[in-house]
């Protein structure tokens, strides 16, 4: 039996584990990126490679040591280095003497044949057409439920009375989704998630709203962004991320296959500022910034790994986008550092700034109103 493993990114390991197991593989679960992962990644990666590259490489070493013989990763298109990273990681790992097969899943719109070949390698049991449908439905439901639990946590955390309660509930929800065995159980879990969040004691106020854009890995993996959403939530801020797992899967797998618009709307929003693609999610970062501004967000945070070219390009445009639309802007560059204090200081100051701005706008409105009345 194939012993398959994959990079760790947010809660995606739950549906991925389910999918690969159902297709007849043994799954070696990757650990949440930790100090050891980062040390390994930094040791074997080229010094100038970005943080996500190092984390993923470190994870690969850990899972290969744990007995994996097949690594599954997604490929990519465009000039971001990450598109070639899988190949480079494979080379580095083989040089280190590990024996394994690397399977890269390319976006279907451009490499459909390759993708089918890759998937065939991962199907190691006899499955009927019906089985495929059932597996697909189940995994999709898991994905959407995980996203739902996370979105709810972002909504509730700034309002929580008892600090840390939302985070505890969120972890519980993730476990519930991971433990569900069939569709009936998943439906029950969906109800339970709603009830659990409803049960949290909440304050009644309108929190400052911050949108987060940036490179996908540091956006989706909390251990790579110093748990920024949790920190902001506990500072009383409503956070929304431009990317979620399910959304990402849809736009990059399904839509891509049928060449449908999806992320393309976001690209359209970026058009006044960004006419060319620059790889990675640079253009999406700008487009999403416009989208957040249109929805009345107070501030924007851009997360990028140190030396990430697409995000550097976006970073030079974002201040203008935010200024034109009256939104605060803060760029955070992430690398190996694990000390949260520096980022926390900046976040606190940023939130203070946004709150003061809001207060001032309200005062202005009031005086304007008073003037009109008299």
């Amino acid at each position: 039996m194939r012993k398959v493993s994959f990079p760790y990114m947010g809660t995606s390991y739950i549906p991925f584990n389910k999918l690969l197991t159902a297709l007849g593989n043994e799954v070696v679960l990757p650990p949440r990126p930790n100090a050891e992962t980062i040390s390994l990644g930094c040791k074997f990666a080229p010094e100038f490679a970005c943080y996500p590259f190092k984390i993923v490489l470190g994870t690969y070493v850990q899972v290969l040591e744990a007995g994996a013989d097949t690594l599954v990763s997604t490929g990519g298109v465009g000039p971001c280095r990450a598109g070639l990273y899988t190949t480079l990681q494979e080379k580095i790992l083989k040089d280190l003497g590990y024996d394994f097969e690397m399977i890269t899943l390319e976006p279907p719109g451009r490499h459909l044949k390759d993708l089918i070949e890759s998937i065939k390698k991962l199907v190691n049991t006899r499955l009927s057409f019906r089985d495929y449908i059932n597996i697909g439905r189940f995994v999709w439901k898991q994905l959407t439920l995980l996203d739902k639990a996370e979105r709810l946590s972002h909504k509730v955390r700034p309002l929580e009375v008892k600090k840390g309660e939302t985070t505890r509930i969120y972890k519980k929800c993730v476990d519930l989704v991971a433990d569900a065995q069939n569709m009936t159980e998943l439906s029950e879990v969906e109800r339970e998630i709603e009830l659990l969040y409803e049960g949290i004691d909440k304050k009644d106020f309108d929190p400052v709203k911050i949108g987060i854009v940036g490179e996908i890995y540091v956006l989706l993996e909390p251990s790579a962004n110093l748990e920024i959403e949790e920190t902001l939530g506990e500072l009383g801020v409503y956070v929304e991320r431009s990317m979620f797992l399910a959304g990402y899967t849809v736009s990059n797998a399904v839509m891509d296959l049928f060449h449908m618009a999806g992320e393309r709307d976001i690209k359209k929003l970026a058009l006044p500022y960004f006419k060319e693609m620059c790889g990675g999610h640079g253009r999406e970062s700008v487009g999403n910034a416009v989208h957040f501004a249109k929805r009345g967000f107070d501030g924007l945070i851009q997360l990028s790994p140190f030396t990430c070219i697409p995000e550097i390009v976006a970073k030079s445009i974002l201040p203008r986008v935010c200024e034109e639309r009256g939104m605060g802007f803060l760029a955070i560059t992430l690398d190996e550092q694990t000390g949260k204090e520096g980022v926390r200081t900046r976040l606190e100051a940023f939130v203070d700034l946004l709150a003061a701005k809001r207060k001032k706008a309200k005062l202005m409105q009031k005086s304007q109103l008073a003037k009109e009345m008299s």
Partner: protein
Amino acid sequence: MAYYLGIDVGSVSTNLVIIDEEGVVEEAIYIRTQGQPIKAVQEGMKMLAFRNRKKWDIKGVGTTGSGRQLAAVIVGADVVKNEITAHAVAAQKEVPDVQTVLEIGGQDSKIIILRDGVVTDFAMNTVCAAGTGSFLDQQAHRLGIPIEEFGNHALRSKNPVRIAGRCAVFAESDMIHKQQLGYKTEDIIRGLCQALVRNYLNNVGKGKEIRPKVVFQGGVAANSGMKAAFEEALGLSVFVPRYHNVMGAIGAALLARDAEVEKTAFKGFGISDIKFTADSFECQGCPNHCEVVNIKMEGKTIARWGDRCNKWKTSL
């Protein structure tokens, strides 16, 4: 009369101030942290207790700086604020229509942009410490000039030497090379000030619109050479407040005053006699092996941090 205490625990210095209701500074203390924040805070409190002739009635306490959490548990703080907000508040008190705050401390530097009395943008140095106080300290030491004299030397120079400012390592080797060629020390020092200002404006102040009035604060503001270099580069006059080196602490005290706390958490000046200790252990809960720090008062743990997952932080 009511008084307010502000404490700023930075990497290089620990500052304590007492202000009255009007925000007037009664007492200001500046001591070196020397890697021992607990000791520094206690020492500062001891000095304040000694000078406490008027029997200050402390109605509120604010802490700021990278050691703000630690200081807060030791003295009992009502307000714990980041240093950016604290510095902005203090600068505004000093110069109400300030639009730009330049702040250079021991290990970091920041720029704060204000418009109509509200902070609208800020930046802190991220990748480079070339322009900060520790580097200037080190260079003064290497040239055998007391840091207090550094600025005056720079002002005497007529022909500054160009020094590479992008990186502390480049700057230092450039300085040594120019010294060996026989350039005058004062010209090198002025060149260094210009290089640091250039680096600051390109790095920290990148893309920010610097409008007057400009306030320059932090430990480095004491350096008249740096002030002159800023004025030269910006073409604006730069104001250095009297208490420029304790502005963070003043801001913290002002924030405590404005927080309108009903009953302060202040533990009194006597805390300098209480035994505070810190110890740490490595959590074995996951492969992160976080170093968890326990802050103990007379042997009893009163605060805990250092864990990434909050398992220990919330266990008290």
